């Protein structure tokens, strides 16, 4: 039997007009079906054989009971029938193992393939994409949605085929005994399928609510316990307990919602089975009395009926499963359809010695906002140390990110050594840039691995040299395992200043011709910051460096300072020039002098 077709038909039934066409969705999974076709074929063959073997057990039972009723049975005949049943059951065990391993295994292979594809896809996306989609959002695609697809392609497919074969075969066997009785006995069955479908759909929704409530409860207790001192300081204990009580009650309520469905679902299955039994007892009994069917037929009928209960529930369950799988696949599809706006396929640039960036009449608006951050912005940054300052929201970070090629720009607005960046492969541009963000990301790994992030092959001497330049070497040596100390959730917690210095060391190690430091030492005290930059001067010789900071003392060390205001360059020049020309710069400098704002003794 053609497996892929089975899935296709399911798919066609369920697809909704707004969703992408079944063809589009199928291109994510069809190749995998093709790739694993032998595995699937073996699995489904085993599954169908199991179904028929199971159906044959009542047949043997019928023969046995009939021979007993006819008083023609002997112990040997009964023993033989018993052995047949056991042999069949043994075959069933083996074949069931096979289909489970083959088909469910396939769904796991499929899961892995899609998971890897999603990951490979998202590491290429530009920052604008990550602003539209939160981490939680993407995580949900990679876990919940993928899970739903895996379930539909694994258990869902198994249950669908199983239910189909069992239903058709059981009905055929029953009809073979007595058609009218079959129809009567089956009367309650469709209700079971319908009920299961309705209830399991509702159950899923309510269950999702329960999980949401549970994570609210978890999050609430976490946030309370993390700030327990604050809670105590503000005598908020009662208040928090009351809030917790509210959440707890909601959680109880949603659980009861699930219980009401559970309380219905299984009793209804039992009810429908029992109603079938009742019909067989009442009508089948009559038929036996008037001699239309044998006693053995009667017993076999009952057995077949029991066999039908599961497939009927399965039909209801499977439709939900497949529907959920399709919804999830649609979401995954929309994720995979997103294209990075950065040119990955452009022309490769050689690693260059000297680099000049040129921004020409650039307009830039964040995808999540309406008003532009940069308006008709032009700036040339060549070799040398450039400083940049301005109020929060004046566009400093935006410029850094654009230069680091994290955001896409329009054609003819950013030039890399005179070439339009949109014609160049983004990875080859990045290979020239070192970048230190204000809130650097470190990874849960050893300190050494974090510093060597961009250059895993670097020797330890070089790493330590970079760490010394960033004034973090001594801090690292103070940790129990030195450079091998693990940081992050399961390791040592670093202070903000340590994180920033580590990020700087990381950027220094790769030693690229461009270095962008976006307020990258704001949590380091002024004195240390000063020392770091004094030590870096030599290292930065000939490089294109952009340092963003609001500490003007630091900027006095640069060759050229740019003052930003509302996305425009208000002034630029050397420190002395700016003191004369820029009122903003002058007042800021005076204020910083007067108040010696950073009386920070760390």
């Amino acid at each position: 039997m053609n497996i892929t077709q089975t899935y296709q038909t399911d798919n066609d039934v369920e697809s909704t007009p707004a969703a992408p066409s079944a063809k589009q969705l199928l291109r994510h999974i069809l190749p995998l079906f093709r790739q694993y076709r032998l595995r699937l074929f073996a699995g489904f063959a085993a599954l169908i054989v199991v179904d028929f073997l199971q159906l044959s057990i009542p047949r043997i039972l019928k023969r046995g009971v009939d021979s007993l009723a006819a008083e023609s049975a002997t112990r040997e005949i009964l023993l033989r029938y018993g052995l047949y049943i056991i042999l069949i059951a043994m075959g069933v065990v083996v074949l069931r193992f096979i289909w489970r391993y083959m088909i469910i295994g396939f769904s796991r292979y499929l899961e892995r393939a899609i998971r890897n594809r999603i990951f490979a896809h998202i590491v290429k996306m530009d920052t604008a994409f990550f602003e539209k989609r939160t981490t939680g959002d993407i995580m949900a695609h990679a876990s919940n949605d993928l899970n739903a697809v895996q379930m539909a392609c694994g258990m869902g497919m198994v249950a669908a085929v199983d239910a189909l074969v069992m239903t058709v075969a059981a009905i055929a066997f029953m009809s073979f005994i007595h058609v009218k009785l079959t129809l009567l006995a089956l009367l309650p069955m469709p209700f079971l399928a319908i009920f299961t479908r309705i209830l399991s759909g509702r159950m899923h929704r309510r269950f999702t609510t329960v999980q949401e409530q549970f994570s609210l409860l978890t999050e609430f207790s976490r946030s309370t316990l993390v700030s327990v001192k604050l809670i105590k300081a503000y005598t908020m204990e009662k208040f928090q307990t009351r809030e917790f009580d509210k959440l707890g009650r909601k959680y109880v309520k949603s659980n009861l919602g699930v219980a009401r469905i559970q309380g219905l679902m299984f009793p209804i299955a039992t009810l429908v089975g029992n109603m079938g039994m009742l019909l067989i007892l009442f009508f089948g009994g009559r038929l036996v009395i008037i001699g239309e069917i044998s006693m053995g037929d009667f017993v076999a009928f009952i057995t077949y009926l029991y066999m039908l209960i599961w497939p009927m529930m399965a039909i209801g369950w499977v439709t939900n499963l497949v529907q959920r799988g399709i919804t999830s696949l649609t979401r995954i599809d929309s994720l995979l359809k997103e294209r990075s706006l950065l040119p990955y396929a452009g022309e490769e640039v050689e690693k260059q010695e000297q680099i000049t960036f040129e921004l020409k009449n650039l307009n830039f608006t964040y995808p999540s906002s309406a008003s532009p951050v940069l308006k008709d912005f032009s700036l040339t940054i060549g070799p040398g140390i450039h400083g940049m300052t301005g109020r929060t929201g004046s566009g400093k970070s935006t410029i850094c990110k654009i230069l680091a090629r994290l955001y896409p720009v329009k054609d003819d607005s950013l030039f890399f050594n005179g070439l339009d960046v949109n014609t160049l492969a983004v990875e080859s541009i990045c290979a020239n840039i070192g970048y230190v963000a204000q809130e650097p990301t470190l990874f849960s790994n050893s300190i050494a691995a974090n510093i060597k992030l961009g250059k895993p092959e670097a020797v330890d001497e070089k790493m330590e040299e970079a760490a010394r330049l960033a004034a973090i070497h001594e801090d690292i040596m103070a940790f129990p395992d030195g450079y091998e100390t693990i940081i992050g959730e399961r390791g040592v917690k670093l202070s903000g200043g340590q994180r920033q210095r580590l990020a700087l060391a990381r950027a220094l190690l790769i030693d690229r011709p461009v270095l962008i430091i976006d307020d990258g030492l704001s949590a380091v005290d002024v004195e240390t910051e000063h020392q770091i930059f004094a030590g870096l001067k030599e290292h930065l010789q000939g490089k294109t460096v952009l340092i963003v900071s609001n500490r003007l003392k630091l900027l006095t060390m640069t060759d050229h300072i740019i003052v930003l205001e509302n996305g425009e360059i208000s002034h630029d020049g050397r420190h002395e020039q700016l003191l004369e020309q820029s009122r903003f710069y002058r007042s800021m400098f005076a204020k910083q002098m007067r108040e010696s704002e950073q009386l920070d003794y760390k």
Partner: protein
Amino acid sequence: MKDFGYQEDSTTAPLGDFNLWGRILVYCRYHWQLMTAAIILSLLITGATLGLPYLIQTGIDGYITNSELEIAERLSGLSMISIIFFGLVIIVLVATFFQVVTLEYVGQSIMHRIRQNLFGHMLKLDPHFFDTNPTGRLVTRLTNDIQNMHEMFTSVLVTIFNDLLRIVGILIVLFLLNARLALVMSIFVPIAVIITQLFARLARAQFRRIRSQLAKLNSFLSESISGIATLQVFGRQKETRKLHEKLSFGYLQRNLDQIKLFGTFMPLTEFMSSTAIALILWYGGSEILRNQLTLGELVAFLSYMRLFFQPLRELAQKYSIVQSAMASAERIFQLFDLKSDRILADKPHSAEDIHGNLQFHGVHFSYDGKHQVCKDISFTIRRGETVALVGATGSGKTTLVNLLLRFYDPQQGRITIDDIDISQFSLTNLRQLVGVVLQDIFILQDTLLANIVMDTGTSRQRVEEILAQTGIDRFVDRLPSGLDTLIGEGGQQLSTGEKQLLAFARVLCRNPIILVLDEATAAIDTESENILEEAIAESFANRTSLVIAHRLSTIRRADTILVMEEGRITERGNHDELMELNGHYAELVAMDVYNEAT
């Protein structure tokens, strides 16, 4: 999605711990009526379920195959049986529904009660407790552990009532029908129990491995997403992808292992039930041949065996649930047994008519009993005065605040307010007398107003007055919808300066007599800083104020500056005096000014 599976390693506890059972049962007493009802429903369900095959047997032997009766009589008898059958079916449906809902209600209510008690209990524990217990573990107590216990309450109660009753009932009926055949059938009980037990144990171990791998995979993914810009700038896309593929492959492998395990064990129950059918046919059939059994009884046997395996399997599975629930219960009750070792005043001093003269008398303190954080600290702040604490990180400034709020008690020396030892006040009263503005702030996901008012019940009008008085209203006006702006996660994000302003407003609502301010160390925006400066000037005026100062403007305003070095007060006096002294303080100031000058 936030929880990537924090797990405990020890997961089982002895089932015979009567003390533990006793404590669990205490919680059941509030619901004894409903629990009795559930037991009655259980009896009803079991009786009705077991009655069904019996009815079929009666139908077969009494009417269907009973050729001694008239056809009409046989048919009407069959109708009678069918009606009773229908009745029982409805009883099963209704009783099961009510039982499930009742037990869920009881279980959830008990869990809710335990959770509330535990939460309240935790908040009463000393800060010391939270220093030594990771938050993650405590959260697990409140959520997963209680959830585990709930599993036991609902599913285990159902199991014990229904499944056990059903198994016993079936065995009794089988023995009544035919003792020898029943004896043969009962060999399945130990076999099923052993197999299911073994399976449950293996499956749990495997499940844990899958979960931990999934946790790794998910945290790798989440870390990669949040660090994506870094990975891209450093050109690590390919390497990261390879690492991910490795983790993803590990996850696949573990899942395939699980499939193998399930594939081996799952068909075994089915196999046993088929074997039972074969046995009944062979052995029972032989009994019929010897006229020891009727055909109807044989059919009844077949039906009963079908009812037999399901509860047997569940019972064995539930055994391990009970085990892990007991382990959770043990951990929960251990927490309940922890009591604050703080000596609290029997008759707390009233907090009324307190003038607010704060004194530290020779206070010594150490967190770990070895390293002295505060050494012989003495000072006095009178109402209307401001004292600024300055000194390097770790010099003991924050500890003084912790001691004042009685998060910890000094090992030596006393802290008094109006000459009353602070241990004479109740903790609540003390913390109402002393208002603190800390660098951290606890933000509710609510409007700004709700965040300021919290549980004080201050009217909006009064809040507006306070804000206007201290000039903080200028900060409020900056927000899109003023006091009604939603803040916190999903709402307006506040800057460091704005957070401190909020904390300030919050404390002012409580109108404390003593005000403690831990100034932000981080740079705050100029505008917030201006507002803050004004608010400090305004609210310090008629209060006793203690500031951990990081800003020269604040320090200059203080009546007395205490310079702390390694737990001691080394210099005291106002700005001018200390500058003249030319000691550590002057050095600190000079260093900064020196830096400014270049």
